[in-house]
């Protein structure tokens, strides 16, 4: 993570602030920073999204390509994740610096999307054992302002919502070899159902309270944080303790409750913005980084 240097006094100041439910930037313990979500920002991808959460800036591109199904799951397509920590975020990510963090994020994403409930992988299959759609989800980290996992999960969900996969017909000619024929109308495509794609909520334990959406400074004063992936119905699909400190059991149960509550509100807000983006259709004036 981008390292920020904090003196002891600043840390004490932040911790005491949080005891009284007041954070440095005026938010309450369970409030998110202002979030901007914008879809279809990069043209030659099947779907893309950009999320700006405070000073954290994430760009996700999804490209659908034809591939062969995996041996153990012959009738399903699959997702491939790749996280690129660009040197833009911090000089430490130059060269191979960002690889360690990148692998950690990729593993968490695989863990969340491994069970079949998040994305209907069967709809990605064209014909079993031979052809299926592979969705390459590429996450580009442009700026680290703390709370990376939440921003990344929102961006991935938005990008998958925005993904358009061209319709495909399978022609069976005589000697049994299958012929794939792409439909020529660019707008004739299938959309993915992202309703039960979960979002990650990271709760950081600071002092004896926990906060949501911690900034870099707050992350520096938190010894341990709990990462929860919450679906819009409030069920948890992944739980992971991060950081080198430990948590007492009671605070874990409290954090799970808060995570569920915050997760639901986040899903509703995200669904609303995605529908608004969708309703504007293609006439929408793309803001991108010019905003």
């Amino acid at each position, binding site marked *: 993570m981008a390292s920020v240097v904090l003196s002891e006094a600043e840390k004490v100041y932040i911790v005491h602030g949080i005891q009284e439910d007041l954070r440095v930037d005026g938010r309450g313990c369970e409030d998110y920073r202002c979030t901007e979500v914008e879809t279809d920002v990069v043209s030659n991808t099947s779907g893309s999204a950009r999320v700006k959460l405070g000073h954290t800036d994430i760009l996700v591109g999804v490209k659908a390509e034809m591939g062969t199904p995996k*041996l*153990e799951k012959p009738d399903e397509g699959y997702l491939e994740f790749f996280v690129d920590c660009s040197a833009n975020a911090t000089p430490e990510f130059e060269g191979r610096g960002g690889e360690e963090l990148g*692998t*950690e994020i*990729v*593993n968490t994403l695989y*863990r*969340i999307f*491994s*069970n079949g*409930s998040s994305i209907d992988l069967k709809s990605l299959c064209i014909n079993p054992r031979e052809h299926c759609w592979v969705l390459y989800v590429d996450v580009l980290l442009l700026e680290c302002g703390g709370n990376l996992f939440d921003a990344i999960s929102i961006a991935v969900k938005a990008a998958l919502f925005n993904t358009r996969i061209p319709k495909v017909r399978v022609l069976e000619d005589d000697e049994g070899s299958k012929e794939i024929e792409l439909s020529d109308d660019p707008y004739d495509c299938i959309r993915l159902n992202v309703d039960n794609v979960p979002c990650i909520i990271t709760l950081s334990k600071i002092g004896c309270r926990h906060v949501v959406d911690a900034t870099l400074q707050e992350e520096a004063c938190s010894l*341990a944080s*709990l990462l929860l992936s919450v679906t819009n119905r*409030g*069920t*948890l*699909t*992944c*739980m*992971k*303790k*991060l*950081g*080198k*400190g*430990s*948590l*007492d*059991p009671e605070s*874990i*149960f409290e954090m*799970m*409750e808060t*995570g*569920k509550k915050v997760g639901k509100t986040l899903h509703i807000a995200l669904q609303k913005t995605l529908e608004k983006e969708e309703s504007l259709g293609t006439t929408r004036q793309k803001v991108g980084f010019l905003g």
Partner: protein
Amino acid sequence: MPLDHRRVPGPEESQAPLLYAAPGEEEAAPGREAAALRPLLARAGLLSQAEGSAYVELSGGTKVLCAVRGPREAAEGRGRLLCEFRRAPFSSRGARPRPGPAAAARERELGLALQEALAPAVRLARYPRARLEVTALLLQDGGSALAAAISAAALALADAGVEMFDLVVGCGLCRAPGPAGAWLLQPSEAEERAAPARLTVALMPGLNQVAGLLGSGQGGPPESWARAVRLGLEGCQRLYPVLRRSLLRAAERRAAEGPRSTGSSA
């Protein structure tokens, strides 16, 4: 692939016979009570070359061996704990995982989870410019492999004479299939494969603090996860005496033959 020319070359790709086996004659797990805790065998101080070592075996067949390289000189400033968790190629039932980037990434994730479970317990402040290397090797995967590795690593660290706030006990759980599936303690490999949700809990028993938590799958609402965590913590408390006894036996053995042969490897 740079890796391959360093190993004796085999066929390009090969399939496990299991894929072609007649499925389904899996022996049905005998009706077992959810909170049943199967005995755990633990032994500390068994490797000669490592400063600290431990071996943990769960009755489901999971065998983990762990070695700790004592404080070694580190390049940069503050003390660091480096964990590595490797699976033996013959440890899992199905196909042999081919050594490649994908396998390395998954092993890295387990190594990281191990490191985050141990970090709260080790007093790194006492080793200002040193590096502690923990290497765990999974010989056979019979379910809740990460939990066994966490217990083995904590034992090995204590056996190496590294200062710790407390031991760390790991316990694995999985949810029985079906909508209202109950959580099972220390699942076998078959139960773990069929389970919709899995969870590994790491507890510091003396201080009653949760050191590590890693769970995924459809565990349902937070209340069900909370039940699972409580069950896991209770399991850890019950496993703690076995680990403690094995460490004491190793300490006594070391004390007994300590003074005689100082220095030369026991």
